[in-house]
């Protein structure tokens, strides 16, 4: 087994990986930028090195240099940044360092979304209608014709990016040319590759993924499916397992299909095979995420498998050590992605210094976060502050538990989307498990309080708060309070 692992990531996933490494007796090396220096992953690691180059956690050269300098024998990329970068994985191998993930070849074949769909389609599985676009300038007529083949509404995507960033939905032909141009610029900017394709939109639909584990000895298992149909800005806000939209027979079929598809690519390590489920209940393969996912803990909860531990064991060449029969999926798990963003201000990021931080506790409640009281939430990175995951025997109990956990979760110093989650969890249709990809589009964030007793009590509390503040004479300049308050959260009285 590895002696020392470098974690080329930040935030809650870096903390998550450190925890498992520590339990496995593996020393950890954390990386940090100046903005991240006070993050929890730096405090918890055995060693911590600062990154100086502009690419930050994506700086392949610097990461490899640190890895060599500190003599690590493996690098865990987490998600994003250097995950799913075949070239980086190759350079690790050349440096004699194990990349915790699939082989460069597998990453490459999966990173090109069009080729991946070709393979799956040839194998006889359903995929969305799609059409690859040649590089360079395109003849309008040709473009229009390709679009006709796919049909409208369609989405213009980066061949490297897959679903998510850089994608452009086109409802009618006249918007096509412009959308392609924009998507090309974005793809070039985000992925350094302007290779595009058109994909037919399937809506309404359900997003489901199957979590799989595959070792180097030909053993492959799945840990059930997750549904992530609750999206905002292409981000999964809530994910759960099992998928409420599926019947058990569908589940079985989905699992088999996912394993077969993973075999097509000779997949290894952990990954998620993603599908769209149309209203007729057909599964359309979209892509394979060749890395750990933000929502992996949901599958950990229902399967009782530590996915990060298995990832590391597989990377070290060990056998899975459990067959599908040994994996008992039980109960219902759900994850809320808690972002540092302001639900009352168009969900803009809300950076700042955390002055209070109370994590929910109790049976089968788990929070993965890099925050703590006194920790600065930087503006630069993803607003993801914490993953709140709960599990219970049934979906109803799971929803009840999540509501309870959300109520206990307390963050002061930055604004979070906890109020949004609370309202979604109290939405009748969501509570009934009756939702699809349209849910968030139609969801309205409630802002009015209708309970008169609460308002009366609130009036009393506001009056007392005002009286107290007036009594203690202090300047009320917001700036001074925002910085002052927090900083002074550790100051001695003079």
């Amino acid at each position, binding site marked *: 087994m590895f002696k020392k692992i470098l974690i080329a990531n930040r935030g809650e996933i870096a903390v998550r990986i450190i925890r498992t490494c520590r339990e496995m007796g593996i020393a950890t090396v954390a990386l940090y930028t100046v903005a991240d220096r006070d993050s929890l992953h730096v405090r918890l690691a055995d060693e911590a090195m600062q990154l100086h180059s502009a690419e930050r956690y994506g700086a392949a050269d610097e990461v490899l240099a640190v890895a060599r300098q500190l003599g690590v024998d493996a690098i865990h990329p987490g998600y994003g940044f250097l995950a799913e970068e075949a070239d980086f994985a190759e350079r690790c191998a050349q440096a004699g360092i194990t990349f915790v993930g699939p082989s460069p070849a597998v990453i490459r074949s999966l990173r090109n979304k069009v080729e991946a769909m070709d393979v799956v389609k040839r194998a006889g599985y359903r995929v969305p209608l799609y059409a690859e676009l040649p590089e360079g300038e395109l003849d309008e007529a040709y473009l229009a014709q390709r679009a006709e083949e796919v049909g409208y509404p369609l989405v213009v995507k980066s061949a490297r990016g897959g679903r998510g960033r850089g994608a452009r939905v086109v409802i009618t032909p006249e918007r096509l040319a412009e959308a392609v141009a924009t998507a090309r610029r974005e793809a070039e900017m985000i992925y350094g590759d302007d290779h595009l394709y058109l994909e037919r939109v399937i809506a309404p639909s359900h997003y489901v993924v199957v979590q799989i584990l595959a070792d180097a000895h030909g053993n492959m298992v799945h840990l059930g499916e997750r549904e992530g149909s609750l999206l905002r800005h292409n981000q999964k806000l809530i994910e759960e397992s099992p998928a409420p939209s599926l019947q058990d027979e569908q589940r079985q079929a989905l699992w088999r299909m996912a394993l077969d598809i993973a075999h097509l690519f000779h997949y290894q390590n952990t990954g998620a095979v993603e599908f769209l489920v149309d209203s007729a209940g057909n599964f359309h393969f979209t892509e394979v995420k060749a890395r750990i996912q933000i929502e992996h803990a949901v599958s950990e909860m229902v399967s009782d498998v530590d996915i990060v531990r298995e990832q590391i064991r597989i990377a070290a060449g060990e056998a899975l050590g459990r067959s599908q029969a040994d994996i008992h999926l039980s109960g219902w798990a759900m994850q809320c992605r808690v972002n540092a963003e302001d639900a009352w201000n168009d969900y803009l990021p809300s950076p700042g210094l955390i002055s209070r931080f109370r994590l929910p506790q109790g049976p089968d409640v788990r929070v993965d976060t890099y925050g703590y009281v006194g920790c600065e939430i930087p503006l630069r990175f993803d607003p993801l502050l914490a993953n709140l995951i709960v599990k219970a025997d049934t979906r109803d109990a799971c929803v009840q538990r999540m509501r309870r956990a959300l109520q206990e979760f307390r963050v002061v110093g930055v604004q979070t989307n906890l109020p949004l989650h609370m309202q979604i969890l109290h939405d009748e249709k969501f509570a009934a498990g009756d939702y699809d990809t349209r849910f968030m589009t139609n969801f309205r964030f409630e802002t009015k309080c209708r309970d008169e007793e609460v308002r*009366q009590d609130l*009036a009393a509390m*506001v009056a*007392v708060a005002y*009286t107290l503040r007036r009594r203690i004479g202090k*300047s009320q300049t917001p700036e001074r309070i925002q910085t002052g308050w927090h900083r002074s959260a550790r100051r001695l009285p003079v």
Partner: protein
Amino acid sequence: MNKLSVTIDDKTFEVEVSAQQGTAGEFSVYVDGEPLMVYVPDADTPEAVDWMIVDNRPYEMVFATDMRSVQLEGLRHNIQVRDRETRGVRPISGDGRIKAPIPGLIARINVEPEQKVEAGQTVLVLEAMKMENEIRAAKAGVVRQIHVKPGQTVVLHEALVEIE
């Protein structure tokens, strides 16, 4: 005892607040005549208060630092407080120095150096928690010094203007 008008979103309540003698953090409050007991932990550090008990109902909340809104049970409420006492408040000190009766922001200054003023004449306007307080001269005299500028924030009892 302290008389206030508290507006929560669109609804205004008339509130009276008085501290309970000898019991730290406990206040007796009347909201539109309705008597309530309020307990506040850390009453000595108001900016830190993030929960209270009203009668036997505990609440956790987050007050905006400027006290213009408060979050409670997943909702954000706009709040406004008008103080029925400090409007047109008289200066604290009997002498010529006019001090700030409450912390706040200097909205307007109505006098100039060497200007003559009558007793009770408004010298400047101090804004605190969205409420304008006219600060008046205690006695007739001449403005000798103005220590503040419009837009400046002042702390409790900070000297504002000197009249001789």
